[in-house]
């Protein structure tokens, strides 16, 4: 007895899904989910990016708020037990008075406690650059101050500046990839596809940029930038020079990959069908380089973050009064500050965390997209 064909096919939606062929993206995601470090990296990045999105809400003060009487103030530690040994259910801080401006010592005034409150009214800002509001995540009543990571030489809250700085430092990596990715893919695609003399000339050009120690080039290029422009313009210019340095290595990778791709049968088939070169490159070759592009992109971003912070640290990137993790760290670079106010090094920690997270994620992506390493 013949069984009707339909009966042999799985009936439940779940079973159908189990049989349905998986797209490469699904396969990669399955693999990525098993990579614990990649997930941790991804989670850290989600937290960091949300922090930068909600920076004005999380930050207790605004970017430029400065308390001149509290410069180089050490981090405020929330306490639970007051001077008389009484336990408070809500953490609180004490106010402080500057005692010695030279040694930067502060005297804790134990007479009055300032409880740490959540969702307090503070300075006005626009959430997501649109909704005007005054609510901040946490804060203490005036004249008390809460400096989670201490203050800088102008009495500005370092934690606030780190949060705002993350907007520069975290976005720049993504922008650089957005610029280098299309350039690298098209340049490398053309060089690899045509081969021969075109390839030779194009790659010699790219190699000139690769031949320099990247940071030397970066330093010189950033010095060429106009200095009398606003923060935003400067930010875009830095993005531009980071991309100028980044595209060459990227296109070399793509080109090598395309060289091997163009010998495949399906390219031959496309050619036989009479597609022109441009369409073959854009429709058939470049999509196949996407896994490589994702891997390289995820490893380009941390490179760009390090590049920007390095430049800003040396005073050639994002400048005061804007903040980026690199330029915040500049304050810690002088020996007096380093020895008396080591909390100025906090921004460096954020650079390390963000870059580590990207490297975790990048390695996970590489494993996920590299079929040779795929276990299933």
């Amino acid at each position, binding site marked *: 007895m013949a069984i009707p064909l339909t009966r042999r096919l799985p009936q439940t939606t779940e079973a159908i899904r189990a049989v349905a062929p998986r797209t490469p993206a699904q396969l990669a995601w399955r693999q990525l989910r098993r990579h614990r*470090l990649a997930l941790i990296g991804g989670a850290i990045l989600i937290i960091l990016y949300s922090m930068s999105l909600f920076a004005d809400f999380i930050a207790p003060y605004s970017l430029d708020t400065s308390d001149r009487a509290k410069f180089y103030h050490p981090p405020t530690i929330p306490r639970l037990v007051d001077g008389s040994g009484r336990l408070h259910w809500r953490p609180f801080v004490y106010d402080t008075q500057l005692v010695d401006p030279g040694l930067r010592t502060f005297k804790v005034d134990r007479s009055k406690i300032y409880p740490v409150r959540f969702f307090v009214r503070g300075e006005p800002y626009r959430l997501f650059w649109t909704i005007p509001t005054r609510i901040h995540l946490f804060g203490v009543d005036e004249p008390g101050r809460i400096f989670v990571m201490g203050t800088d030489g102008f009495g500005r809250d370092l934690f606030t500046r780190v949060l705002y700085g993350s907007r520069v430092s975290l976005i720049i990596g993504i922008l650089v990839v957005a610029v280098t990715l299309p350039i690298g893919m098209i340049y490398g695609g053309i060089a690899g596809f045509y081969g021969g003399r075109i390839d030779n000339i194009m790659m*010699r*050009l790219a*190699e*000139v*940029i690769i*031949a*320099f*120690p*990247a*940071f*030397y*080039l970066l*330093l*010189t*290029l950033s*010095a*060429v930038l*106009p200095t009398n422009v606003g923060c935003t313009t400067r930010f875009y210019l830095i993005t531009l020079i980071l991309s100028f340095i980044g595209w060459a290595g990227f296109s070399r990778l793509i080109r090598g990959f395309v060289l091997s791709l163009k010998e495949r049968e399906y390219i031959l088939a496309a050619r036989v069908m009479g597609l022109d070169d441009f369409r073959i490159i854009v429709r058939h070759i470049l999509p196949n380089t996407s896994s490589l592009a994702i891997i390289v992109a995820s490893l380009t971003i*941390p490179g760009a973050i*390090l590049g920007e*912070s*390095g430049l800003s*640290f*040396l005073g*050639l990137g994002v400048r005061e009064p804007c903040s980026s993790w690199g330029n915040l*760290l500049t304050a*810690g*670079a002088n*020996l007096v500050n*380093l*020895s008396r106010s*080591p909390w100025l*090094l906090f921004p*460096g920690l954020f*650079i*390390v965390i963000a*870059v*580590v997270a*990207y*490297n*975790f994620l990048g390695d996970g992506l590489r494993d996920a997209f590299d079929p040779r390493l795929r276990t299933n």
Partner: protein
Amino acid sequence: MLRHVLRRLVQMIPLLLGITILSFLIIQLSPGDFLAEIRLNPVVSQETVDQMRANFGLDRPLHIQYLRWLGNILRGDFGYSFAFQVPVLWLIKSRLLNTLLLSVTSLIIAWLIAIPIGIHAATHQYSPSDNLLSFTAYVGISTPTFFSGLLLLYGAFRTGWLPIGGMTSLDYDLFPWYGKVLDVAQHLVIPASVLAFLTVAGLMRQMRGNLLEVLRQDYVKTARAKGLSGRIVIYKHAVRNAINPLITIFGLELGGLLGGAAILENVVSWPGLGQLILDSVVRKDLYVVMASLVFGGVTLVVGNLIADLLLAVSDPRIRYD
């Protein structure tokens, strides 16, 4: 072999030309005349400035200026530093040596540390020590040199064990020769360990990956099957093959090292090429910047060539003729 070296040298010529052209063009993009600063000096008369313009050929069209500069370079004349009032070559020579001292020292330290711990991590894959080493390596490649440099400086300040910054002590000139060596070595500890940390991290990851790859190969199975001890299989067969790819990334490493050193030199005031280039970039010391760029590029290109040759020596499968 000799023919291969010669061919590689000839192939380098267009690259080196490209390096000089790009170095030259970037400087031309720079806003303002670099004589502007001199012009502001009230002691210098307009005639002198004009004289300098003519001397440096600044009144000529761009390509003439470039060719003139290139011609001078080929004769070993890299121009004159406006800020330091000395010939550029003289200035760069000592700086390049300092940078190389720093980079090569940390490279040697890095290789000495990275290979054994890479082997350990690969042979003990997924053990707690491997996980710890891998995690440390992640942190290592992710820490900017200026941050780790500052942390070590802070440590040095707290403990007083090491000199803070610079390359020599104030009374350096009074020391006998061994005292001088010791003094520089002491100052070298912080920057060299920062750079070594960065390099160890990258190398160790590479070594671990390579060795794991090699250990899966058939000839390793064969070696084990014929009864060789685990140590001999690993050290005599596997490790030798796993090291070769490390030599090929030498060029990449050198590039990272020079770049890492460039920022670090400014943090710990190590008088190297990186510090010089920042100084001269800020002061618009045209010829020094161009020469530093050229020297940086050439160092990297030569480093890659050396890596190529080393690979040919170490890997008998590669034959150049």
